[in-house]
């Protein structure tokens, strides 16, 4: 069953066409990686899905509901079902790990409880078990500005998970991390997706990582989808087309291997 269906999505920034008639489907529990060179429109696509950016035209259906029609409060309710993970983590630096994770529950709470930061025992135990899964249990009381980048990103994932999302959007989640932490983060995301049946739409810069983890790859060039298919079918020539460069400049092996760190 498709969790997310995007039909003919187009986005203009003033006169600039950033997304041109993009259509895309995401099945339950599927990991779809979006690749493309800088400025291709990856971030725009991702943010249109939870309407952090308003699309110009097209349909976006989440579990059969046309999300472009949602009003303000319905939009908030809708967003609670979708986790989002950022390149720069976007944690509140002066709050503790636990507080930042619990922030993920805000959409489920009344305004007043959210303002006062009052969470139920269930929410606490949920946050704790999520932290355990991400091997952060011993960091719960630390302030987030004292964490390493990899730890911060895991807090970001934990925040998304306590939302109990059915879809997680990741915008270059490993772009600011060293290779080891990056691999760890990708492994966590992969495991979560498989175990909890959560779909993941992920923007990546590293083709080899996309090939290793994704069930499907979508290549975008200048706002248009130029590839949508199994990683196995992504050939060097296609990658060169997506990135607009010579085949000789592509340094990875089709479907067979890549960076040693990720094998």
């Amino acid at each position, binding site marked *: 069953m498709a969790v997310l269906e995007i039909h003919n999505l187009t986005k203009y920034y003033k006169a600039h066409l950033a997304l041109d008639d993009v259509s895309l489907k995401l099945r339950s529990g599927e990991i779809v990686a979006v690749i493309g060179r800088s400025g291709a429109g990856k971030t725009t696509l991702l943010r249109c899905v*939870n309407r*952090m950016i308003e699309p110009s035209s097209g349909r976006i259906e989440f579990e059969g509901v046309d999300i472009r029609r949602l009003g303000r409060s319905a939009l*908030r*309710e*809708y*967003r*609670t079902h*979708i*986790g*989002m993970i*950022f390149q*720069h*983590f*976007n*944690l*509140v*630096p*002066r*709050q503790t790990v636990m*507080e930042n994770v619990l*922030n*993920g529950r*805000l*959409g*489920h*709470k009344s*305004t007043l409880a*959210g*303002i*006062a*930061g009052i969470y139920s025992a269930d929410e606490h135990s949920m946050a704790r078990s999520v932290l355990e899964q991400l091997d952060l249990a011993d960091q719960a009381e630390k302030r987030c500005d004292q964490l390493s980048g990899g730890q911060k990103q895991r807090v*970001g994932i934990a*925040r998304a998970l306590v*939302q109990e999302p059915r879809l997680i*959007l990741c915008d270059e989640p490993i772009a600011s991390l060293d290779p080891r932490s990056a691999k760890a983060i990708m492994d966590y995301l992969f495991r979560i997706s498989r175990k909890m049946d959560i779909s993941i739409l992920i923007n990546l810069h590293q083709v080899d990582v996309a090939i290793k983890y994704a069930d499907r790859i979508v290549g975008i060039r200048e706002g248009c989808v130029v590839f949508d298919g199994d990683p196995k079918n992504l050939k060097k020539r296609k990658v060169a087309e997506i990135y607009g460069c010579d085949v000789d400049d592509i340094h990875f092996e089709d479907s067979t291997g890549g960076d040693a760190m990720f094998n």
Partner: protein
Amino acid sequence: MWATVAALAAITAYGLFTLDSNGVNIPDAIGETLRNFRTIFLHPESRRLSAGAAAWELLLTVAQAILITLFSGLVSLGLGLLGARNLAPKPLTQAIKAVIAVVRAIPSILWVLIFAVAAGLGSTAAVLGLSMHSIGYLTKAYAESFESLDYGVVEALQAVGANWWQIVFQAVLPSSSTYLLSWTFLRFEMNFTNVVAMGAAAGAAGIGFDLFMASSLYFDLGELGLITYFVLAFAILLEIVAIRVKAVLKER
């Protein structure tokens, strides 16, 4: 830049040249002032006003400054949130910023006198009038603190489905509290000086009024000295505290 400096220098020269000294013999006046300084700073005395009474008047002044700071801080917090570009719709922020700029541009003495028409000269008018100016200042400072926040944090909570109030209380305020506190404390120092000034200029209760009486009514240099020392001591104390507070806040 040098054009600016040259222009300023030219205006200054013109200003000094046309300065009206009202027929005062300047060397004599300078001599007299220096002699006055000597009396004021070397022979402070308490005649009408005992040291205890002066301390009480100082406390009265501080209390008014606290009232002004708290009241204006509370109002400014609301206005600052609504005036921050990243937290409120653009027309609203622009309206608030424009109004606040005007409020700030009106000198505090004029605010106080305007309120004095309704409340009479005295502390009520002084507190209200100084609060206006304080609101003008703090709203700008708060709004700019909010605007300098990492917007990603706000976006992250939007993406979670949190509403405006929740974002304000869980992300905006925790992240900016140190800035807010140090701006507020800075303003408290300014409010203290302003209350002293309004005591002298607009009859607000407190040490400023005694300052005015000592100099303009009694011509009592010794008492003027005593009062000056009290005010100076407290102002320097505040400055030291402010430096400490800043250092502590920086660590956190």
